[in-house]
């Protein structure tokens, strides 16, 4: 493996200074499940690895029913599903953190790293989009926030500028009568990468019959995970029905621009967007109705 220096940063300013000084040659290490493989296989030219796991802000995992969730960028997947209140509030996110890799991967990999790796097929990103997550980014010029759907810019590329790092994700508290759902298609039962992934969140009226608002997001059908804006908007104000859900699924299919590769053809992926969008919406609606 390529030789590199290693620093375990203790504060956000220390990490930012190192990233700013070293530019493209510096990479952040959190769970390492992508980074270490990428360095080993020569896909990244890295001179400095900045381990951020000793920085308090990136390890925060705090849920408050009024203000929502603060999820530090290095919090491992397994910690998200160990907290019942988080599982209840954001089931769509937990659907994803439970299926990324196997047990050993979930012991190291986190939602923040999954986002920063910026894979088009990243399982955590559609749930973050449908849950209205905001990225808290620290850099040489201070802190800024960015809606998560604007974070990935191309495969492996993010909106992070030189010297910037993702500190945490903020997810608003769920509205009443709302829930979320994520699923992916893979040809196996587990331990695979999404052929297509779809996430949905819905808020229903008090009678749980009419959709007040919805958000849909897709993975592995474009260079970045997609927020299906028109499909989401089409559901607002409509009664829960197969027709409404079919309309949204068609609108989601319309924005998918998949490629054909070893995991599936473009045609199959476009078909799957329809199937998975319907299932994600129905799944989220069912969760709202099942809740007391």
């Amino acid at each position, binding site marked *: *493996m*390529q*030789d*590199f*220096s*290693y620093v*375990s940063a203790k504060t956000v300013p220390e990490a930012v200074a190192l990233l700013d000084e070293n530019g493209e040659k510096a990479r952040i*290490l959190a*769970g*390492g*499940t992508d980074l*270490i*493989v990428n*360095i*080993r*296989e020569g896909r990244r030219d890295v001179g400095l*690895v900045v*381990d951020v*796991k000793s920085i308090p802000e990136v390890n925060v995992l705090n849920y408050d029913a009024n203000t929502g969730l603060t999820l530090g960028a290095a919090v*491992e997947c*397994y910690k998200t599903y160990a907290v019942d209140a988080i599982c209840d509030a954001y089931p769509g996110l937990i659907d994803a953190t439970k299926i990324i*890799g*196997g*047990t*050993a*991967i979930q*012991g*190291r990999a986190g939602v923040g790293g999954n986002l920063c790796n910026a894979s088009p097929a990243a399982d955590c990103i559609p749930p973050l989009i449908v849950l209205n997550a905001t990225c808290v980014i620290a850099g040489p010029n201070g802190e800024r926030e960015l809606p998560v759907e604007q974070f990935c810019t191309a495969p492996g590329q993010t909106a992070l500028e030189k010297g910037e790092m993702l500190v945490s994700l903020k997810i608003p508290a769920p509205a009443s009568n709302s829930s979320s759902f994520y699923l992916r298609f893979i040809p196996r*039962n*587990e*331990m695979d990468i999404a052929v297509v992934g779809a996430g949905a969140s819905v808020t229903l009226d008090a009678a749980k019959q009419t959709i007040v608002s919805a958000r849909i997001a897709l993975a592995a059908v474009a260079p970045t995970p997609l927020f299906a804006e028109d499909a989401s908007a089409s559901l607002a104000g409509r009664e829960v029905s197969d027709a409404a859900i079919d309309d949204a699924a068609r609108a989601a299919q319309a924005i998918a621009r998949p490629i054909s590769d070893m995991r599936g053809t473009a045609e199959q992926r476009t078909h799957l967007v329809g199937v998975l969008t319907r299932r994600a919406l129905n799944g989220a609606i069912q969760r709202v109705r099942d809740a007391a």
Partner: protein
Amino acid sequence: MARKSHVQTTINGETVEFLCESRQSLLEVLRDELYLTGAKEGCNNGNCGACSVILDGRLVNSCLVLGVETEGKSVETIEGLAEPDKLHPIQDAFLENAALQCGICTPGFIMSAKALLDSNPNPTEHEIRYWLAGNLCRCTGYDKIVKAVMDAAKEASA
């Protein structure tokens, strides 16, 4: 020659100090610096689980951890399981159930099973199969491994 860092960590309950390069994985440190060759290198990219160890109570792939990251941490490896004259119950269950053939995946499976039973002493077969999904075995077909873990759990709660 790359610069080496001094690292102090706890391995199987004993304080251990070693020198390693930043680019050396925990797996390489265990095998090449500390001569603990129980953890195996299979795929070296986090798919096969042959290098599974327990780091601060959590199952990890040691090929995806840098040696320098273990400063001040606690590592459990397959070498720490048996007592001098007595195998660990999970090891006994693997032998009893013939849950290994070539054996290269076995240390990883046993560490993974230990991490499972440490956190969930009475798992269902379904839970065992999902928990062990990150450990690959090309000989047994998995059934005997799953039965061994179920037996070990039964034995521990008996």
